[in-house]
């Protein structure tokens, strides 16, 4: 019954508890980007350590890590990056197209584990040193091996152990290689460069100029995902999906401990851990389960799980989703709020026969397949809702709130992109000023098709702002005018958010969407919901500064 109490507490009424806990974690904003280490020479080691899970478990695991300080970290704007000697996923190796990449791997795993290695699917690898293995040249316990390959084409790809893979990948020996494009004149013309910003051709406008105006740091690794002008992006996130069966990890630990001090290769100095039957209880994005996954990159609580999953974006920003299946199961990764255009699979850009345009499919569930990576573009604008998401006024309001009364001048695509400085930059103008509610809601005009019922029949969510609207003051205007903008002393005013328990910074006015595995059993942590492969994606109003550096 203890388990039931626990489960019910969280799933039924415990969102309050969960949210409170989350709110504590969210004292600082925590975002994601695609953090990693730069080369082109990488000194890696494979070691053992424990991974923290939200149920309190410390799961014995193996992972790749840095053997000494790496050449550098990227993106440069994330300044607290670290690379310990073991992490899951392994360090994200960020290189540039055409570079000759050298990976020196030292096997520091317990002797009983035996040899380990790395395979780099999609690259022509030559290996020196080490001992011969089946899929790759291997590093014997205490030994080393060197892999070398040319980063021949851009994109996101997996790397993982090629030795006793059914066990070693389960234990955590996997990571990602991100190859940045060298670019060309056409890409620069369309996407700009990291320093100059640009005009994404797929969405006329200037997201980078808006970011600069709002003093947002650029956390991209490049201006385009590929050497193609249709692959520009404004923001990027890398998600690696894997699951863990704690029984396998426990058995591995027991056997390693029983063989402590044995001599590698000696009789009895090896593991015999069955990897079937397989019953994973932990479902991981970037080595973490929800809610831990939404804590910052390099958070001190998870020394061996440095990478998070906590995507944020502004309306209209082209967001590059890099995703890799690292476990042995497929996971249908459902992006709420819009589709994803698949750009490439395993670094292979999918183009029309002419080569001029994209031919990858559109998906609202982007399957993650073991050993397979994809790059895709996602964006959100709120187009076509048939009501103004900002709750704008058609005329100046009695409270003198300038943000309630803003122009929306449609560009050729219908978006307000003329002024990157506007709070409602990238608003969909066809619904501008169009009311949602039949009755006025606070300061927001009425006349729409809906009648919202008594708020008492709702239960508000932890990420819900208390009303349907987006924007720095919309939630206040929709309930009570903000004190600062109230011109009449007789009116009630508030500085509180209506829900007042958002799992987000107090000044963040975002729309939250769940990004998760739609094999819903996987959004649990060891039988407890919520957990597992679940993160919230925030569409933030333009003025909110998305700072991915913490």
């Amino acid at each position, binding site marked *: 019954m203890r388990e*039931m109490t626990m489960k019910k507490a969280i799933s039924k009424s415990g969102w*309050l508890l969960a949210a409170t806990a989350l709110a504590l974690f969210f004292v600082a904003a925590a975002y994601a980007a695609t953090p990693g280490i730069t080369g082109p020479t990488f000194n890696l080691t494979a070691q053992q350590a424990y991974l923290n899970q939200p149920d309190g478990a410390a799961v014995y695991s193996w992972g790749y890590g840095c053997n000494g300080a790496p050449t550098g970290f990227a993106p440069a704007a994330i300044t607290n990056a670290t690379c310990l000697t073991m992490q899951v996923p392994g360090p994200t190796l960020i290189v540039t197209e055409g570079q000759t990449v050298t990976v020196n791997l030292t096997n520091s795993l317990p002797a009983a584990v035996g040899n380990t290695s790395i395979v780099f699917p999609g690259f022509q690898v030559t290996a020196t040193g080490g001992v011969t293995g089946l899929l790759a040249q291997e590093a014997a316990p205490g030994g080393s091996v060197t892999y070398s390959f040319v980063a021949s084409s851009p994109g996101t790809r997996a790397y993982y152990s090629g030795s006793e893979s059914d066990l070693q990948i389960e234990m955590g020996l996997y990571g990602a290689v991100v190859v940045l494009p060298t670019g060309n004149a056409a890409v620069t013309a369309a996407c700009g460069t990291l320093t100059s910003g640009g005009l994404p051709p797929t969405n006329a406008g200037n997201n980078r100029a808006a970011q600069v105006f709002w003093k947002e740091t650029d956390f991209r690794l490049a201006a385009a995902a590929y050497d193609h002008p249709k692959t520009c992006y404004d923001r990027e996130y890398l998600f690696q999906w894997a699951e863990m069966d704690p029984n396998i990890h426990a058995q591995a630990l027991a056997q390693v401990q029983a063989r402590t001090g044995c001599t590698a290769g000696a009789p009895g100095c090896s593991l015999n851990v069955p990897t079937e039957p397989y019953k994973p209880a932990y479902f991981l994005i970037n080595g973490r389960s929800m809610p831990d996954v939404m804590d910052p990159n390099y958070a001190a609580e998870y020394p061996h799980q440095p990478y998070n999953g906590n995507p944020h974006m502004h309306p209209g920003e082209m967001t590059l989703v890099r995703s890799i299946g690292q476990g042995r199961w497929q996971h249908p990764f459902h992006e709420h709020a819009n589709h994803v255009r698949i750009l490439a699979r395993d670094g292979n850009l999918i183009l029309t026969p002419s080569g001029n345009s994209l031919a990858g499919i559109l998906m609202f*569930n982007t399957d993650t397949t073991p050993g397979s990576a994809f790059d895709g573009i996602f964006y959100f604008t709120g187009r076509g809702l048939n009501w103004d998401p900002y709750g704008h006024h*058609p005329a100046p309001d009695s409270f003198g709130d300038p943000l309630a009364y803003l122009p929306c001048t449609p560009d050729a695509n*219908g978006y307000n992109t003329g002024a990157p400085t506007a709070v409602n930059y990238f608003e969909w103008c066809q619904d501008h000023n169009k009311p949602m509610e039949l009755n006025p809601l606070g300061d927001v005009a009425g*006349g729409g098709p809906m009648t919202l019922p008594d708020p008492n029949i*709702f239960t*508000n969510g932890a990420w819900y702002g208390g009303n349907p609207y987006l924007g720095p003051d919309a939630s206040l205007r929709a309930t009570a005018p903000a004190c600062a903008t109230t011109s009449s002393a007789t009116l009630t005013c508030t500085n509180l958010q*209506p829900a007042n328990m958002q799992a987000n910074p107090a000044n963040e006015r975002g729309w939250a969407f769940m990004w998760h595995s739609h094999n819903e059993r996987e959004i649990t942590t060891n039988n407890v919901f919520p957990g597992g492969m679940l993160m919230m994606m925030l569409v933030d109003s333009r003025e909110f500064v998305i700072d991915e550096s913490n």
Partner: protein
Amino acid sequence: MRNGYALSLSLLLVVIASGIANSQSFRVQCPTSTITHPSTLTNVNAEPAYSGPTTLAINSNGFYAPTANVNGAIKCQQVSGGDGYSTMADGTQTFMFSFGPLSGLADIANGQAGTEFPNVFNTVYPGTLKPGDPAMSDGATSGASPGSPSLFTFNGAAGLMPDLDAIASGACTAPCLDGHVDPRQIMDIGVMNGNIPAPLVAFDEDDEMFLTLTNVGMLMRPDLFEQHTIHFHGYPNASSFYDGVPDASVAINIGGSFTYYYLAPDAGTYFWHCHITPPEHLQMGMVGQLYVRPRQDRVPQGTSLYTALQQQNGLGTTVDLRTACNPNNDILCSAFTPAINTGLNQGLDLLGNPQRYVYNDGDGSTAYDVEYPIQMHDFDPNFHFVGMTFNPEAFVDMRGKYFLLNGRSYPDTVATGPQATMSSDGRMHYSQPLPALINIPAGGKASLRLVNLSVEQYHTLATLGIPMKEVGFNAKLLRDQEGNNTEFYTNSITLGGGESLDVILDASDAGCGSAGCAVKLYPAGSVFYLYTPNLDHLSNDAENFGGMMTEVHICNSVTGGSTYGNTCN
């Protein structure tokens, strides 16, 4: 009871909004005129022909409103959130958390959507609805004897009543059907009335959709004061408010109704489900089908499909950017004008109805004669038993043992008419209204709108004989950014949980070229099978026979409609 924390959260809203909040917690909404569909300009109770984009102009209130050529209509539907029982193919009664129909009751019983025009939705039942209706009025006596589903014909909103208080106060004139309901009738119909799949939702591009969720509570689990929500899975550019994720918006408490509002998104096969504790509520059965029919269905006879799509895509004289797909502007649209103009004009299908399409293809490549939504799912009997008996639920061990197409396993999939189950209230309920039997007129094409809503596994569905043409994936036409169709022929499809795709079961003789075949490839009277090659899924728990399989019947003609409930002659 009201949840304490909901109350505390909402105090501010109460203070501010008490003047506007409707005091009745059960209610429906189905306006007869809106900004987008003003009754002065259009008949909201019918789908007008598509002769070009709606003309919009900024009105005196400062926002765009139509002035002419209004497209689409208003559609409304009400569903209950609660519990119920279904019958598995081995006879096992299975407890569910589930949605049930509270509008379109007769249509649902006949295998169709419960989505209605306002003039149907806003009708008052002339008598008193009985618990278990429509199965009770139809005389259902067992799962295999659903009575006569033609007896009960009411399709309006269950519980809808004249608002007598409003009439008395002078705020409204009789009959004053303003959404006021009689809660008793809602409880009588809604309690223990779960369906698997959840009630079918289908509407048309340009429609405004008012989908009311009424939480009637779960009779078998009084310990749970479960909220429910509706997640419209795949809605592009969704608002978080109407996205149904309880963490990011609102969840509907027991005793409340909430109306979700959607302007129809791009045509395609979507689906809907509750988003409360998804591994539990989805496994327990709160999953339904939803699709949006394309504008191209409404193109007048003899009109070029290519031209009509050009108009939608902003290449005509009137431009509506909302309907436009230009890949140079929008990386997330797929219904671009085709690279090749096939010159096809709108015509009639094999049933003699205006030709219909899965997408706005502009070239007729997604045309079909009959359409069948098919939901793949699986029930873990252990989890459902635990869910009924107050026991702790284990997610790690969850494993489906009943493999379902539209909530049924073979051979129930080929039984016609609704399937009834006696619930713990001692009354028959239509628990599984949708068959999965595919009738195709000889030489015809069937649109299969396929969805997998398993919460723990991928499923494959294969066809023996008739090839599948996959034309859409995740509610998007398969077409690249230069207008080349990327459709392909296959004999199997694989979907993970929460995924959809569109195939055309192509029983035409297209393979024989324009001269046709000497002998029909798929002659009338032949039977083909649609089944899962995950062979262990061809079982019903302990029975080593059944599971995820159904039949495709080739008919001399198909009458009585182009979807479930029709007749194979």
